[in-house]
């Protein structure tokens, strides 16, 4: 009886092990051949823990990005969504661009991202000019500031651009510091960068020896990537598929700008206003302390909607007043895009294949962003920069 049972258990274990090996072999073949552009495979896991922001790109990670548009990704030697470059400042001027997944642009080749396009344009007029991509998927205002302070300043930039989704000021997640840096109020109600994630079990695990082993496995095994991806989306993820993006239908709706009117003009809700004030204060402090010109570029404020023109203008004026009042420079990115492309064509800068109009910037969108950023940086840079400042 015991012998029969142990033989049954052994058979099941051998079968299960063969299934693991078969799966590993199959996905490795897919990953190593042109089949990776068509067949399913686990998405590259390129993020790791970071003391300043909670998470960041790990250096020299490569693999296929699948969401929205298939793309082969390789993170840089510095752990950025960028080309390899030395940490030390080169002969030309250096700009850093901080932002979220719009700047990170994992859906297109590295050379097609907005910062890479801006670098190519700038380098034509100023040999050696560099534009470093500090885009990080999911980065909110607090992460932007923390990332500029930690990774941005380490690059000794001559100028910094912070590309900001104003939507981030309308979501309570901006106050959450359990997974990455957030803004939390002190006893006096003044908001400061907060790093609650450092005490979380997840962060402690990821920075432990076991965590390092986990990342090693993640980089070397397809099945571990599958398990990790499933853990991230949840066992029952398919029970509640994500709602289809409906940006297009709501973009010009009458009430779409109301939360921004409340926040930027009326100062409501108070906690979000506190976060906005802290964000501007912190950037102004960096600019002052490090003598680093900073441009704050806002996006996701409906441009090209005639019915909302007045409301939008009032919001942009209020944002500009606050940012320029703190000594920072301001760029209305949406306004520049509509001016360059026309309101009707702006939607074509987003999305891929059958989903043009929705999602992240496509190749054309990144090119337009790159051209605008290059222009803004060129005008903001001192005519004769001093290397290594």
């Amino acid at each position: 009886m015991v012998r029969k049972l142990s033989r049954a258990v052994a058979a099941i274990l051998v079968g299960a092990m063969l299934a693991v090996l078969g799966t590993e072999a199959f996905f490795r073949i897919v990953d190593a051949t042109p089949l990776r552009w068509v067949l399913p495979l686990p998405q590259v896991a390129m993020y790791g823990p970071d003391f300043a922001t909670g998470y960041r790109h790990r250096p020299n990670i490569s693999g296929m990005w699948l969401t929205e548009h298939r793309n082969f990704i390789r993170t840089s030697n510095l752990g950025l969504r960028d080309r390899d470059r030395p940490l030390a400042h080169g002969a030309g001027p250096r700009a850093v661009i901080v932002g979220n997944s719009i700047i990170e642009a994992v859906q297109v080749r590295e050379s097609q991202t907005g910062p890479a396009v801006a670098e190519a344009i700038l380098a034509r007029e100023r040999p050696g000019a560099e534009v470093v991509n500090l885009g990080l998927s999911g980065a909110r205002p607090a992460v932007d500031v923390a990332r500029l302070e930690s990774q941005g300043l380490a690059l000794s930039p001559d100028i910094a651009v912070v590309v900001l989704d104003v939507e981030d000021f309308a979501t309570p997640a901006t106050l959450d510091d359990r997974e990455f840096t957030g803004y939390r109020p002190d006893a006096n109600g003044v908001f400061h960068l907060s790093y609650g994630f450092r005490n979380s079990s997840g962060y402690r695990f990821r920075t432990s020896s076991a965590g390092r082993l986990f990342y090693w496995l993640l980089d070397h095994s397809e099945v571990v990537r599958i398990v990790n991806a499933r853990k991230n989306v949840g066992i029952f993820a398919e029970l509640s598929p994500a709602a289809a993006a409906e940006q297009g239908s709501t973009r010009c709706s009458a009430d779409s700008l109301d939360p921004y009117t409340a926040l930027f003009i009326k100062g409501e809700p108070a906690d979000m206003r506190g976060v906005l004030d802290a964000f501007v204060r912190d950037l102004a402090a960096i600019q002052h302390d490090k003598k680093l010109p900073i441009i704050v570029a806002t996006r996701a404020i409906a441009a090209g909607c005639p019915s909302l023109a007045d409301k939008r203008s009032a919001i942009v004026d209020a944002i500009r007043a606050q940012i320029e009042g703190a000594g920072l420079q301001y760029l209305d990115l949406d306004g520049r895009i509509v001016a360059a492309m026309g309101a009707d064509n702006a939607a074509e800068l987003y999305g891929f294949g059958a989903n043009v109009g929705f999602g992240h910037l496509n190749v054309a969108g990144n090119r337009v962003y790159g051209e605008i950023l290059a222009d803004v940086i060129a005008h903001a840079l001192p005519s004769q920069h001093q290397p290594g400042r």
Partner: protein
Amino acid sequence: MSYDTFYFALFLAATWAAFVLLPWRGYVLLLASIGFYAVAGLRDSLLAAAVILVNYGFQFAIMRDRRWLYGALVLNIGCLAYFKYRVFLETAAGLDVFAQHLIIPLGISFYIFQLTAFLIDLSRGRAKPFYSLPRFALFKLFFGQLVAGPIMRWRQFGPQIHRLFDGTLPQRRLLGIALGLCLVGLIKKVVFADALAPFVETIFHNGPASAAAAWLGIFLFSSQVYFDFSGYSDIALGLGYLFGLRLAVNFRQPFAALTPQDFWRRWHITLSYWIRDYLFTPLARLKRSRRWADFALVVAMALAGLWHGANWTFIVWGVGWALAILLWHMADRHLARLGVGQWVLTFGIWLVLLAFFRSSDVGAALRYIATMFGGGGAGTAPLPDDGWGGALIALGCAGLLALHWSEGYLHTRRTILLMRRFDGLLLRALFAGLALWLLLLPKVQDNPFIYFRF
């Protein structure tokens, strides 16, 4: 609940465990099937329950008086028309008899067709009534064939249901084959159909920029719809075997067909035979003339097209197939000399007519077909302009066809005997493990089974 999800695997494991451990196997499957369908929502569940209850009652009425069949047909077809073709009727005939906006209930075309076939068979003396409501309910509700077929006949499925409830149905003899079929179905769906979906979507949404892009788009869609539906059907077969039930085979290498008639003997077989037995044959027998039979074929195929969806594109698709069958029949002797040319022609007919199946309206389909034949592509979806990319695409398409051909070896008696010979815990763990890894892989894009919407 979709078969290609991890939570369905958990549901299946729990159901199978209960099925093996508990003595009330029929009731276990019935409860599981009700739970499976309940995920579709309360409205769909109530409708399915009502249709099943009404049909349960009709069988006794038909036993007393055959004329009750007409009442049952009116009710069943009326229900299908109301829920599936309301908008189409409104726009096509200017009718405005229904005010509410309705969404097509899940699987309605399949369960209405199966129940209707049962009642017709009953009236013809080819089926026996179900006196037990649970048995009758499971006859239609079994989750292995509830949502998208195969459309089962009483003579195939009825006796198995009775043996299941009586405890005389042999089980666990075909577990290796069952898990193998589920794995093959999942590979077809997850690895191939879902992978092709974004390319097809892009070409049809943006429009092909050239004839080559148009042919590629339609070929990829053809592969997508085949791998999607035959994958579902393989899983359905496998699920049946898991519980000792034999469901009907729905696909037999349709792309290897040499004639249009042959194609329909290989593609969605249970629907083809349903149309033949309950629509074409009764209609053709009304008048004994060749012309009438041809007319009956056109009507039957048009209705077969309409079954797929409330759109003129499906009707044109069905009529196109009818004309292809009739023309082929007329030129049969000449075409037989073509050899492999017959295959090329049949596959070409399938691809060209498929443009109607995929396009949003007849005009778009005609424009697409015009592009296929060099009519100038107005779209923006191009082919890669480098030779290497083009060669890889050609290789990929050849690979898809080769996979289709190789399926012929999967469903042979020799393979089944081989599977039975090596069936054991090791093989079952291997198949179940491989299937689980495919289900664990998160989906990048939501691609429900195509035939779920029919």
